[in-house]
């Protein structure tokens, strides 16, 4: 298990956002985290990524506890993340954006530059590397966000609704990229998604969240037929 969250809870001013949630990610697996809005998905992400600590419970990454660490420490430990609302370094070029991430592991500018360039190629942003990040379209900004996170050479990548706002073809392209990285480098991925097309194509395991609690987990085929899931989120008419 590369990531194990055990009975983590988080309350905000008396409102319990996440209640005793437990889930895990196997090394090299892709796990999807789905559920209706307000279910607590991003809160879980933020706990794993170190934005804030869980009130109770533990999070183990590579068998070492990471709950309570700062966001930058968690990145250094090997977890990369994207943001639901993308946060590019608008004043920098595309390449420079990725280089910021690359400098975590690369000692020299040239090393950082070549790593960044190759990652940009992989994500189809190669030709745009010298453009200012502010000039990118939303799909490209999302790819940039992913590229930046990948430059930190994570063992686990957290993707927060990265498909939102993308057209089906763009979505499929990105799915293919993730599949490839997962296959070639064994990168584990935990993704929050509403776009079921992507979840079904990528996830080997799905965890379903509702009102801060895990209500179902298992393989995609199994979860999609779970009556509780259908009732709270997918709807009876869903065909996937």
């Amino acid at each position, binding site marked *: 298990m590369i990531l194990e969250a055990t009975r983590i809870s988080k309350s905000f001013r008396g409102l319990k956002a996440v209640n005793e949630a437990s889930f895990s990610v196997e090394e090299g697996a892709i796990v999807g985290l789905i559920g209706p809005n307000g279910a607590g998905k991003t809160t879980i992400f933020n706990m794993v990524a170190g934005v804030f600590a869980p009130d109770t419970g533990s999070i183990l990454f590579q068998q070492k506890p990471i709950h309570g660490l700062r*966001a930058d420490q968690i990145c250094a430990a090997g977890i*990369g993340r994207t943001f639901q609302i993308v*946060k590019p370094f*608008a004043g920098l070029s595309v390449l420079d954006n990725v280089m910021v991430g690359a*400098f975590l592991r690369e000692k020299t500018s040239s090393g950082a530059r070549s790593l960044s360039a190759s990652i940009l190629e992989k994500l189809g942003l190669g030709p745009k590397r010298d453009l200012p990040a502010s000039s990118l379209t939303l799909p490209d900004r999302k790819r940039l966000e992913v590229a930046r*996170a990948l430059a930190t050479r994570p063992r686990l990548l957290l993707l927060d609704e990265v498909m939102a706002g993308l057209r089906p073809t763009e979505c499929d392209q990105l799915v293919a990229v993730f599949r490839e990285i997962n296959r070639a480098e064994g990168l584990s991925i935990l993704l929050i998604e509403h776009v079921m097309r992507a979840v079904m194509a990528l996830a080997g395991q799905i965890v379903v969240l509702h009102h801060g609690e895990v209500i179902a987990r298992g393989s995609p085929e199994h979860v999609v037929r779970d009556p509780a899931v259908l009732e709270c989120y997918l709807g009876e008419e869903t065909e996937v």
Partner: protein
Amino acid sequence: MTRASAALAVVAALLIALPAFVGNYGLSVATLILYFAYTGQAWNVMMGFAGQLSLGHALYVGVGGYVAGGIFYHWGIGPWAGLWVAMALCALLGVVIGFLAFRFGISGVYFALLTIAFAEFTRIGFDHLDWLGGPGGLFLKVAQRDTWDVFNFRGPPLMYYYTILFLTAAALALCAWLLKSKAGYYWQAIRENEEAAQALGINTFRWKMVAVALSAAMTSVSGVFYAFYYNNLFPEQVFNIGRSIEIILGPVIGGVGTLFGPILGAVVLTVLSDGLTEILAALGWEVPGIKQIFYGVVLLAVIMFLPNGIWPALAKRLRL
């Protein structure tokens, strides 16, 4: 980039050769320009790199000047020793202010106000510090000015000119090098989006502190120069908020966060304002405060029409 390097080489050559063309007055103007260029560059490290607006930078100039000046005044030890003490002390001061601000999550306007408060507090404090002259000022012995006494930093105007020229060049080189390095990338990331920077493994608190300490230390050198160039220090003058504003005028007009902005801004401001004073004097008008109004108007114009400063627009035009 060779176009830019060529331009830079030409400018450097001109500056080195300048004393041959201008008299003592011209040299003093050039020294003043470079002084503001250097100090503006030092301030730029905190603002342009770490994104923290400091309106109390006169604090570091003052402390630097008083420390080195005081050491020379009381114990006759030259500025080369005083310099290190000044830099260390100011770096520490910067770290304290930075620590207080960042730990408590103070940024933006509140941070600026905090820096002002520290500068003002220190100004009044030094007014009551008789050991360093108090409100009457600290006066350094003006020794024989013909020979170059590098050790005690006493000499003709030429020596001061080349010193400040060297300092400005060194600051420029340092900033250029930093911008291209990991530090530069990290600082710019923090300035652009601190949360995203943290998600990429950057300990933003530590890096902001480094920028603040570096900026403070660099600025203190400016203070040391000031003390030994003018040979007198008054708390009212040195720590004055007007001085802090003077420091930022160059970078803001030239271009915050850019490499050449502070220098360009200093040149534009001093040349134009001195030119204005000359014209007015020629017309027989002695107007107190006209120079400052001029600064204010230029600042206003730049902020309204060239918000990123003159340098970015100029560089684009000259295709550097």
